């Protein structure tokens, strides 16, 4: 089946159960965090309306929280709270706090002073004044704050999928990684619709007259609670083991789809970013993960690769791919890049990755050490005969390779180098290349085949069994379609792999993916 010809509607229909699950999770995440934000923000707003001296500092802190980039805030949460719903909810509620606190404060301080005075003068206690006068009269303003917070949360909740909390971000980021527009839209459109829908509903509530507002505010907490419970519906289907797959892996034929169709593997799956996946497996939050076979953390966290006995993961030999016009413009480039050909095998790459991913050594230092050890390092010539633009995807291995190429080009040629590292995902990297924003980046044969070329299943089956066939196929097709040349492979095969903790795999007697399937089916 060719995914490019599939319409958005077909995609959504095909993935409807996943879409429903993600939407429920998305709504749930939004409203769990919203409820907690209201429970914290409302009393805080009331407090600072009473003690105005505190208002500056409380609103200041909430304002600062608001300015932290959402992805960074999620990142901060991981060391504190691990992965999954907890850190996502905390991050979301921190974003929702400011509008709620500020509007509660503004609403209460905005209540007509003579009305408050009358309430006191009639002998109402402080609490009676609060609940019978101040809060009801401030309610439209408070609701406006809740409305703002809801819309913010629907948006930020898409990022929750990075830390395995689910939501529509699974489709969005999976789609970006897979170069699959339908998948991006299947996540983005419902997310946008949710934001519009909740915004509309809350705006109606806000404009109700004062009398109806009383009943509305009484039913609102109930409604929020029900919506919050949506989050737990999908996770009610648990399993013996939990798998954590990257968004990209989820949607790939040589990923979860292949696991389901070829192995018939059915496992309780959550979607997670690869930045935290290994650690989560190490900390026993996940049992099975989708990793890269040369990842340095494999060694660091005591994980083993399950044998792909039905060969669903095609070979992923890394090689630099370069625009043809760049090769013509810089005649010495190809020769220089090929200096690295065949130099790095799997275990060397794993070791290099271990040094960056786990020992947190600078990729440039790791690259330099390697070149030095292999007598490839030469002092920079400081050349100015044109600039070569090198790209890289957003993980350690690519940073190391990009650094090596930079040093080689600077040492062996008179060209200068500009690097654009950390391009998030295959689609972004490849688009940068076709739009002539970079000249070269390291790519993998399997990715080139499945994520970029996306040939028919038959052609895939014909070439993936053999690493040479795959390489030749992508090399020819890239040249034909994009005028991009695959240079000689670097040597290592960074294939997808399923991994488990060594100890657990040993205990369960799981060595291959088929073993895993059998274990899961045993009751």
């Amino acid at each position, binding site marked *: 089946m060719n995914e490019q010809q599939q319409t958005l509607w077909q995609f959504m229909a095909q993935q409807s159960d996943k879409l429903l699950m993600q939407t429920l999770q998305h709504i749930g995440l939004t409203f769990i965090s919203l409820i907690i934000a209201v429970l914290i923000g409302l009393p805080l707003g009331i407090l600072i309306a009473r003690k105005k001296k505190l208002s500056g500092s409380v609103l200041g802190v909430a304002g600062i929280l608001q300015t932290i980039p959402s992805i960074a805030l999620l990142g901060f949460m991981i060391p504190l709270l691990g992965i999954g719903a907890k850190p996502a909810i905390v991050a979301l509620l921190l974003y929702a706090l400011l509008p709620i606190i500020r509007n509660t404060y503004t609403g209460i301080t905005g209540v*007509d002073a*003579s*009305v408050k*005075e*009358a*309430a*006191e*003068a*009639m*002998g*109402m*206690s402080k609490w*009676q004044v609060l609940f*019978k*006068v101040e809060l*009801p*009269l401030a309610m439209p303003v408070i609701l406006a704050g809740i409305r703002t917070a809801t819309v913010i949360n629907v948006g930020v909740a898409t990022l929750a999928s990075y830390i395995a909390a689910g939501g529509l971000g699974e489709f969005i980021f999976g789609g970006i990684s897979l170069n699959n527009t339908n998948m991006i839209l299947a996540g983005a459109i419902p997310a946008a619709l949710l934001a519009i829908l909740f915004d509309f509903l809350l705006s109606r509530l806000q404009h109700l007259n*004062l*009398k109806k*507002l*009383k009943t509305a505010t009484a039913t609102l907490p109930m409604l929020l609670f029900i919506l919050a419970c949506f989050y737990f519906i999908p996770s009610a289907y648990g399993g013996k083991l939990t798998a954590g797959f990257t968004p990209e892996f989820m949607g790939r034929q040589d990923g979860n789809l292949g696991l389901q169709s070829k192995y018939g593997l059915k496992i309780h799956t959550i979607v997670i970013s690869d930045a935290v996946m290994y650690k989560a497996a190490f900390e026993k939050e996940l049992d099975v993960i989708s990793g890269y076979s040369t990842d340095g953390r494999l060694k660091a966290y005591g994980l083993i690769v399950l044998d792909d006995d039905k060969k669903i993961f095609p070979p992923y030999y890394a090689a630099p791919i370069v625009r043809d016009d760049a090769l013509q413009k810089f005649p010495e480039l190809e020769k220089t890049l090929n200096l690295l050909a065949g130099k790095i095998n799997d275990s060397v790459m794993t070791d290099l990755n271990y040094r960056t991913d786990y020992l947190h050594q600078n990729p440039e230092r790791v690259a330099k050490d390697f070149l030095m050890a292999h007598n490839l390092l030469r002092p920079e010539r400081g050349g100015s005969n044109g600039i070569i633009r090198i790209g890289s995807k957003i993980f350690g291995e690519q940073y190391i390779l990009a650094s090596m190429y930079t040093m080689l080009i600077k040492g062996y040629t008179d060209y200068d180098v500009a690097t654009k590292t950390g391009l998030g995902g295959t689609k972004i990297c490849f688009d940068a290349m076709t739009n002539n924003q970079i000249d070269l980046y390291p790519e993998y044969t399997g990715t080139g085949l499945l994520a970029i070329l996306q040939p028919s299943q038959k052609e895939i089956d014909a070439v993936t069994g053999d690493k040479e066939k795959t390489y030749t196929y992508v090399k020819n097709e890239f040249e034909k379609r994009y005028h991009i040349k695959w240079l000689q492979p670097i040597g290592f095969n960074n294939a997808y792999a399923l991994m488990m903790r060594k100890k657990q795999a040993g205990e369960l007697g799981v060595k291959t993916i088929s073993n895993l399937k059998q274990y899961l089916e045993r009751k």
Partner: protein
Amino acid sequence: MIKVDHLSKSFGKTKAVDQISFEVAGGENLILLGTSGCGKTTTLKMINRLIEPTGGKVLINDQNIMDQPPEMLRRGIGYVLQNNGLFPHYTVAENIAIVPRLLKWDEKRIKHRASELLEKLHLDKKYLNVYPNELSGGQQQRVGLARALVADPPVLLMDEPFGALDNVTRSKIQAEFKVLDELKRKTIIMVTHDVQEAFELGNRICLMDKGKVIQNGTPTELLFKPANAFVKDFLKEQRLQLEFKALRLNDIWKYLPSQTPKQGSVNLHGDVSFWSAIETFKFIKTEHLHIKHQQKDDYRSAGFEELMSAFYQYKKHQPHE
């Protein structure tokens, strides 16, 4: 009934109210009169503890107000504000029911009392279920008054209650106010900067300036026995009109001719103001007023000229004139 004793309030270094003392007898209507910033509103709000005094004390029925929790104290004191302070999210009925509900009256009693008050205040019952913003300013002020009166508190505090109304509405409500039986038994302290209103509604007027009481007396005393130049100056502008309104026929009794009543005379009591007496004239020939003294069994009879002449005589015999 209410005794204010060396009451003071300072905001930082400024003394808003400086050791003032006065007493209000039961059923009396005392007006705190003065320009803005003289401390009259601060004084009023200290009586129901909306503002806590920095010195002195207030006794209501010989009980120190500081000995009661403020909420309990306030439920026994009606309070009317200039901007009515009605709850915009409550209907008229709910607004009126606030204090009775705090006092845990049963709903039937509240309903009965609310409609009774609306009738006395000339408001249609259909207004019970509308919100304050649907009412005119005068109607809102009436509801504000009803809310203050509903639990029949013995004391009523009013902060410029008619200040936000237009002239026509104001004089209409003032006229109703004077004859409202609910108010006759109450001890009222009212704040105003309007001299006319003070003379119209007050049994006694307490003229304040810069946080101190300048003179505390009946309207007639303020006019004809002013304590100092400030008092005289304060009343200068509308003096003649104020005198007409302040003087009762009893005050000029000895200058009125005692003659047998003529036919077609209008009967009047001695406690009506000179102003109202003049207002009864329709300016036709042989028109006379037949006046009965309030305490004594004594009668006087006078035409317009004789009345004016009595006023003139009275003025001439005032020591300060």
